[in-house]
């Protein structure tokens, strides 16, 4: 769910750039370090960025009869880790703004914060928690993708509520209004994205085990047996 170009007041748009900047700078430093140690990683990261873009362009059937697009942040965070996703997500959001007019340049900071920072960190945090607690790969990936998507939607609603507080009940009332109107599409989409991500990981476990091991997603032999 991208906030459209020019929708946020200028001060808020600038503030979200400032909030996102430390995460993107941290991710960029991690990326530069990684590339310096192993220059070939650059090609892999380019492929990962293109995969994230294509993943977010897939059309998921929606309950309203039309189609929705997944954010791809949950699966991306599981595969490539949140710091790298903050940079790759930023690049993908810039491309979506310029190539598709989805989102915008003035709202890039706000969209990066919701989709390339909060979404991936929530998704990866849940994934790591469930895996450490002994949960299966399917459960962890479903929770990461579905709740990562929900976190993105909640943050976008909060950003809009901060920009346009309700005249009577302020931020809380505005959050309920924006959250309510977007829930119609976003709640089913979160479940759909979770299910789709599980199917993708199952498929990749069968066909690209070596790549998943290289990315650190597969470590236990039982993961492959289950899939």
């Amino acid at each position: 769910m991208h906030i459209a170009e020019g929708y946020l007041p200028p001060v808020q748009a600038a503030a979200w750039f400032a909030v996102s900047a430390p995460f993107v700078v941290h991710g960029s430093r991690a990326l530069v370090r990684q590339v310096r140690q192993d220059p070939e990683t650059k090609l892999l990261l380019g492929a990962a960025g293109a995969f994230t873009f294509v993943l977010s362009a897939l059309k998921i059937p929606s309950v309203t009869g039309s189609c929705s697009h997944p954010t791809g942040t949950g699966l991306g965070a599981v595969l490539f880790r949140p710091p790298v996703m903050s940079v790759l997500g930023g690049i993908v959001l810039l491309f979506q703004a310029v190539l598709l007019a989805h989102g915008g340049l003035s709202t890039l900071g706000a969209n990066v914060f919701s989709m390339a920072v909060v979404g991936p960190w929530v998704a990866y945090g849940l994934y790591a928690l469930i895996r450490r607690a002994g949960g299966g790969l399917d459960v962890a990936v479903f929770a990461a993708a579905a709740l990562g998507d929900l976190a993105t939607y909640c943050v976008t609603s909060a950003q809009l509520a901060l920009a346009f507080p309700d005249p009577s009940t302020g931020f809380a009332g505005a959050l309920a209004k924006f959250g309510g109107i977007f829930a119609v599409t976003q709640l089913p989409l979160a479940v759909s994205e979770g299910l789709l991500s599980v199917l993708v990981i199952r498929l990749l476990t069968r066909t690209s085990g070596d790549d998943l091991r290289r990315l650190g997603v597969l470590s236990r032999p039982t993961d492959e047996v289950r899939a």
Partner: protein
Amino acid sequence: MFALDVAAHTGRWRSRHPAEKALLALGLLVCAVSLPPWPGAALSGAVAAVLLVGPARVSPAVVLRAARVPLLFVATSTVPLLVTMPAPARLSVDPAGPALAAQTAGRSVAALACLLLFSATTPLSDVLPRLHRLGIPPAVTEVAALTYRMLFLLMDSARAVREAQAARLGFRTWHTAYRSLAGQAGAVFVRAFHRARRLEEGVALRGYTGSLAVQVEALRVSPSFVASTVGLLVTIVAATVLVRAAS
């Protein structure tokens, strides 16, 4: 593949320096977002729209098709501005709502016209190799450039897989549709990593040292275009200040 990218690559302003187009479109965008919606944003948006379909000669059909999704977001998120919530689960019409909704939607539509002016005239392949001049680390701009080049191949792959799946009734039911979508994502992942590995081998054989230098077409910045842009932006700001002072 992407209508805006095709328009940027084949348009009349293709040979202009990206900095000129960025100054014009992003200058108008800053005016649209930071000046009062009336008349600042309205003027900026109108100028961007006229430049888009006039001197830049971008097809109005391409512009309208690209504007559909963001306009849907603007329409949806403007609805909550029209109502107020005095108590939980109680909604009433906000008397100040229509004015706020009109201002917000107007500013957003004007800014969208400015974004489209940039997108439909400036190919990303011209912008990305020059971004390191703004202080962005070369490693990040090179990853972005690789992403840009690979995504066209991967979008083609995804489309080919989708067509093959559709021809085999892969989207007949929800169950088959999800299985087909997972197949698409899986195929794209495999091809992306396969291509990255082939690129690795290719550049290693050519003595790769860590720098992916590409030839950037030398373009001259037109002083008259820059002067006209600055004049236009100053005129918009001055007109806004004058109209606001008069009202």
